[in-house]
């Protein structure tokens, strides 16, 4: 049977089955089980109303528990067992985890994932905020937003092909067809090259370090100079932010010094995806390119929701556009920025297709999701594969708890 026909039949059976399930189960409930008539009409109505919600929920609950809840438990179990040749499983405790922690490829994946987790949400949110703010002020803003939003519709694999063309490399004596190399070869080592490839990036890195320092200061200051009571529960968070910021500042200053000292290989076409460390960034750009549109759409709506009287008051007080943006608008949409940030963080944790299609984890670009796929389907090692899946789950858990906490708070 042709798959198309099979698909059509499945649609009819699936949809027809769902509809008839809902229709007939309701009919059965009302006409046979608890008919709202006869001597017990009142009691029957109440009973029917107690059962009906579960009739409506049943298919969804079954699907959710089989396809999402059960796998979490089962993966946890698999990560603690090992397949015995010939069938069956054997309890091995934390052996899979110790084995995984002993692999350099795992630490490489974890390190890269951390880098992705910092860079991609930060850059997507920053670009999204910039695009949202700029497009709100011009007449062709809607068109511009559409075009920046467009990559959202493109698959990760399609995006991988698009960016592989951008990063394409031809031998030195041929004309370059990748735009990155074409631009790169335009730099010949003159003063303009020094300006654009050394001074501007170094200033950018230092500005980034300064921004990180500023954010960290906001978090850490209340502990050093307590102007009011510091919430006891926030101290670990504050320390964590401080430590992460110190590491980021160290990394960016080191990169800046490193960049100042190196001789860039002008005139030689580069194979961008094989340069260790930096190639991860070339992969991250693809995801930033996709996610910026999402950040922009949400932040743009939030910016429009900022009450106008606060802005008018600021203008009357003589604030310039930058002050209005950073001191009036941004603080008021901070909640939305956090939501955007966490949503992109979740996407980053699951990133698989881009790495799979562009480098497949070679040249030190491995990430956790692709490492897991390698273990599960190439090495056929279900134990270690499940263990790495649990690591991804562990990284998602704080966001999960935070989301549930917020949802509960909102319902009250």
């Amino acid at each position, binding site marked *: 049977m042709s798959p*198309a026909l*099979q*698909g059509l039949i*499945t*649609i009819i059976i699936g*949809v027809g089955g*769902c509809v008839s399930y809902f*229709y007939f189960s309701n009919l059965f409930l*009302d006409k046979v089980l608890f008919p709202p008539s006869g001597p017990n009409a009142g009691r029957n109505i109440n009973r029917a109303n107690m059962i009906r919600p579960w009739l*409506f*929920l049943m*298919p*969804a609950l079954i*699907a*959710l528990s089989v*396809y*999402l809840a059960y*796998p*979490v438990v089962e993966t946890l179990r698999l990560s603690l067992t090992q397949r015995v040749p010939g069938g069956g499983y054997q309890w091995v405790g934390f052996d899979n985890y110790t084995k995984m922690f002993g692999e350099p490829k795992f630490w490489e994946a974890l390190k890269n994932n951390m880098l992705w987790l910092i860079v991609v949400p930060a850059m997507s949110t920053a670009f999204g905020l910039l*695009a949202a703010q*700029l497009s709100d002020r*011009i007449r062709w803003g809607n068109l*511009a937003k559409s075009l920046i*939003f*467009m*990559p*959202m*519709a*493109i*698959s990760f*694999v*399609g995006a*991988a092909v*698009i960016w*592989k063309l951008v990063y*394409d490399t031809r031998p030195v004596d*041929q*004309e*370059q*067809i990748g*735009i990155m190399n*074409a631009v790169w070869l335009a730099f010949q080592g003159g003063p303009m090259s020094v300006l654009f490839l050394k001074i501007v990036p170094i200033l950018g890195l230092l500005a980034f370090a300064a921004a990180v320092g500023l954010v960290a200061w906001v978090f850490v200051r209340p502990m050093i100079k307590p102007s009011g009571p510091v919430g006891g529960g926030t101290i670990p968070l504050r320390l964590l932010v401080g430590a992460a910021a110190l590491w980021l500042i160290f990394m960016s200053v080191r990169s800046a010094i490193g960049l100042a000292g190196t001789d860039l290989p002008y005139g030689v076409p580069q194979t961008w995806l094989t340069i260790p460390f930096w190639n991860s960034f070339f992969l991250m750009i693809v995801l930033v*390119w996709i996610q910026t*549109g999402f950040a922009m759409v949400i932040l743009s709506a939030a910016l429009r929701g900022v009450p106008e009287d606060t802005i008018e008051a600021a*203008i009357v007080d003589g604030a310039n*556009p930058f002050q209005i943006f950073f001191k009036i608008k941004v603080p008021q949409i901070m909640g*939305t920025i956090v*939501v955007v940030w966490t*949503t992109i963080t979740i996407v980053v944790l*699951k990133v*698989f*297709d881009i790495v799979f*299609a562009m480098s497949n984890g070679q040249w030190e670009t491995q990430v956790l999701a692709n490492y*897991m*796929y390698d273990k*599960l389907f190439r090495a056929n090692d279900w134990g270690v594969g499940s263990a790495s*899946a649990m690591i991804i789950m562990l990284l998602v858990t704080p966001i*999960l708890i935070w*989301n549930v906490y917020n949802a509960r708070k*909102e319902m009250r």
Partner: protein
Amino acid sequence: MDNVVGKKSGLTWAVHISMAVLVALWLFPTLGLFVSSFRTADQIATSGWWSALSTQERQVPAIRVGGTELEVDGRFVIEGRLFTATNAEVSAWGTTSTAPEANAPGDVVELGDGVTLTVAPDGAYVLSSPQTTAGARLPRIFSTAATPPEFTFQNYRAILFEPSNTDGMSKAFFNTLTVTIPATIIPILVAAFAAYALAWMDFPGRALLIAAIVGLLVVPLQLALIPLLKLHNEIGIGKGYLGTWLAHTGFGLPLAIYLLRNYMVGLPRDIIECAKVDGASDFQIFTKIILPLSFPALASFAIFQFLWTWNDLLVSLVFLIDSSGQTTVMTKQIVELLGTRGGNWEILATAAFISIAVPLLVFFAMQKYLVRGLLAGSVK
């Protein structure tokens, strides 16, 4: 807003320019792929896509003079053409690789022994010799020609409509469609009923269920791969469309229920209470009132789920694609092509563009609903 006090902001130009730069940066990569898919393999390999719109001046591969020899006025003449394109124009030519641009078109060059060679601007050459050149080693012509922009649909024809082409996308296209449509429709139906129950029916444990669904929203589907594959094998579904549809349904449900519930909660309470007073059952209220009113939310989720299933690679890799090669989807086909045809951009670009054309169409046609869905799903 910034000129509330009658002062036009001096930043306007900076805003326009930075926005234009940003849009260009975001558009360029896709544009490159789009333009490349309409160029021939030769054009892609020799010049960047950004020069596709301008006239190209480049070296034509060297051609050795050949063809039938005619005797005209006592001289032996061979005529031929350097290239088949009719609108290209030779700007310089030569007979040695060391001086490939020695002569201008129209020059008559003496090659020794009374042999002369001339190349016309349109690429036609004439070799004339006093003796027959049969058996002799004929000269090579190096030339530089300016070719005006030229685009072709040949790539699309080869990839979509040639059944013998192993790189073809037509089968993968229909397979993707077969995965996508049921995987979009079924979760909507299931989720709509559940969302109604969670929004408008009172029962113990409702708040807990909603919290659980919010939690399931972020569970990485990577966790589900092995247990579900095992489950599918045990109950006899194995790898195939049915398993893929079920998996997509399961993975799409949390977002569907969450979006639809949030939307349904916002519907006016009066309508539903009036209907109840008039004696409508829950089932009637749902099908006659809630479902039509929830159309925007249904459309939002339908677009999400469509884009997600169409663009998905991982779920298809695990639950659908077997070794027979009959059930490949487009994303998988493109990854294969990246491996086997890494340098053949005319194939890659066309295949990739075919796969992203449908989502782009949906995107531009229904952007309003997509934005609405995003806002409902995140700003909370």
